[in-house]
């Protein structure tokens, strides 16, 4: 999950960096996943280096979790 820059006030370089660039070093990432049968979107914290899921929770818990 990444925060988008303000499109009206950011520079072209900031915008294209947001569009294309990714933090792609291995580590713990917070991702949107979807449970297809129920169409339920939720948050997964996953270690992209070890292929381990560390936590799953509802998006409503995000503000509280993101603070940690």
């Amino acid at each position: 999950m990444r925060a988008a820059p303000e499109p009206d006030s950011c520079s072209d370089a900031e915008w294209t960096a947001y569009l294309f660039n990714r933090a792609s070093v291995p580590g713990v990432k917070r991702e949107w996943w979807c449970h297809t049968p129920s169409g339920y979107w939720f948050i997964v914290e996953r270690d992209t280096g070890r292929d381990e899921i560390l936590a799953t929770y509802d998006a409503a818990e995000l503000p509280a979790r993101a603070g940690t």
Partner: protein
Amino acid sequence: MFRTPGRLKNGYDVVIIGGGGHGLAAAYYLARDHGIRDIAVLEKGYLGGGNTARNTTIIRSNYLTPEGVKFYDASLSLWAGLSEEFDYNLFYSERGHFTLAHSDADLRTAHWRAEVNKHFGVRSEVVDAAFVKKRVPRIDLACGGHSPILGALYHAPGAIARHDAVAWGYARGADRQGVEIHQNTEVLGIDVRDGAVAGVRTSRGDISTKRVLCAVAGSTPRILKLIGLDSPLVVHPLQAMVSEPLKPWLDPIIVSSSLHAYVSQSARGELVMGASLDPCELHSTRSTLDFAEGLAVHMLDLFPFLSEVKVNRQWAGMADMTPDFSPIMGLTPCDGFFLDAGWGTWGFKATPISGKTMAQTVATGVPHPLITGFSLERFARLELTGEKGAAAVGH
């Protein structure tokens, strides 16, 4: 084959990070064509043990964009002469390459690629299903009845080669010209002063240098982080597997994008099979049963008689994927730091030409004309080189 140098020197003209095919080829051409021989190739594992060892060795130039077709065709011209140049048998074997079409959309892409290819003098043509059957008598043209083969893009120069020998051939050639190849040497840091490369810190000591070439495929984001460069790369595992050895029955290389499968038969008789990338980012070379089952299902669509054949080995490599399925090559915002990356699932065939063009780029400081469409800055200019139609699955 080549020397094992002792300690690292205090400094080198050029340091190449990554002792795979691409890094070794760049070292070879830097020494041969540009007289730069004071080079250290640093490899954190063993030589050619990354994606050079893990790819499925398919060599072709039937791409979609003018940039891609010209670049990969120049690579094919180099490939054909490499065994003789190295005095070392790469088992380079021209087989012909079929990209099967199972739908009107597939056929449309096949025609598009054939026309672009012909325009640049590359032998590609659209053929009908009967032609496919003639070259591959064991194929089930109906694919079990659910995705019948309507025709194919046929690319006669399509070839395979012995991948380990490519790394060893370039390594020996570079070594004989004075290049030092240091295995088990991990890069831990890169010193940058006033926006320019000043040195490299390794697990075996520090080196001063003004020029660094990064050729590390799936480890690229980790190296870029050392100098604070961002990139659009995302690393996904790409899996493959081989069957037990069989008597020769499959001469050409067969690719089906619709069925997410491709196969060729190696000189050892094994069927070398691959499919799509794993769906999400992961920095690991683990294998999954899910992949083997999915690929086997589609292989049986094409060749039902393989149902009793066993799978011998399965493995994965880490593919550094770009948004447009073209590589990232050339200069970077950091002076003296050169990038040969974004090789995703299409890097093996480019080994000779990426070595040659990166060597010239490092030697002169100006991007080789064949790689200007692959610059890192293309993303900021929104000038992508869209190669997905020819690079995805079928490689």
